[in-house]
């Protein structure tokens, strides 16, 4: 197998993720797109780990998964809060924060 096939696939996923982040208006869907991006990164990490024949990539992939879990948790909590306050999770309607 070629290293590149994994990397290119990851690149494609990444771009789809970026597309999603840029175009989605629904908060939950934006978070999902972020997940795509993170997974693309993970594929890269593991593929490079295999390429260099060590486990560093794997270890970091695990970390990324853990952080992603945290991110989704907090992110969804914020979306919920937003929904509760505004009855909408349309990102384009988000006003600036005020202290």
């Amino acid at each position, binding site marked *: *197998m*070629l*290293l*590149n*096939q*994994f990397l*290119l*696939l990851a*690149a*494609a*996923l*990444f*771009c*789809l993720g*970026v*597309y*999603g982040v*840029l*175009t*989605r*208006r*629904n*908060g*939950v*869907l934006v978070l*999902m*797109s972020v*997940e*795509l991006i993170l*997974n693309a990164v*993970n*594929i890269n990490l*593991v*593929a490079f*780990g*295999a*390429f260099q*024949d060590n*486990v560093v990539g*794997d*270890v970091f992939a*695990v*970390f990324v*998964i*853990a952080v*992603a*879990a*945290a991110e*989704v*948790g*907090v992110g*969804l*909590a*914020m*979306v*919920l809060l937003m929904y*509760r306050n505004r009855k909408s*999770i*349309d990102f*384009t309607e988000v006003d600036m924060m005020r202290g």
Partner: protein
Amino acid sequence: MTLLAQVASDFNELTSSEVDIAQNIAFGMIAAVMLFSAFRTVTTANVVHAALYLVIVLAGVAALFILLGSDFVGATQVLVYIGAIIVLFLFGIMLTKARLGDDESVESERRGMGALVGILLLVVMGYALVDTFENAELTFGEPEPIAYVPTEVTVGDVPTPVLEALPDVFAGLGDDDEVTISQADFDSLVPEVQRRVPGAEVFGNNKQIADSIFSQYIVPFEAVSVLLLAALIGAIVVARKE
């Protein structure tokens, strides 16, 4: 190559290049499914569908991990993502009372721009990758030592490569005879053959990962755990009703 190799070990006759072909076919199928699902995830107007497409992508990623020989990460991926995160997403969808059917309002009309950026990004990254790595092969290096617990086996159950590799041990024995391969003999085998020895326990790189995490990367690991705790508390604080 580990798990797949074991699957392949049932097909004793498969050569290395044939294994490669099998892997490539598997990759191609997974990749196609993933790309399609990912595309749907970011384009579908149905929020629940998007989540379900995401599941497929995540599963595909897990499959790729396994294909790359990282069983542990693959398993983690399945557990954490498919098991937990997706459920979270679904909860999120339910709690925000998203329309279960199509909801055109999820999509902004900035699609053209997003597509432009995405394609631009893809072209640049693709060019960079092709330019840099061209035909770099994934060589799965020297596999890790395989643990072996000497046990009695019936000669008939021993695969041919092992029989051929240890002619002295099996000399003059019939198929029904029982024999114990000594640790020394096992050690003398090449790893490819070692895997075929009945009773040999094949490990992935899980052991190494464990070593790494708990020695070299102990600080980041602790940091991640604190982060998770913080995220937990944070999520509660943010989401709770006053």
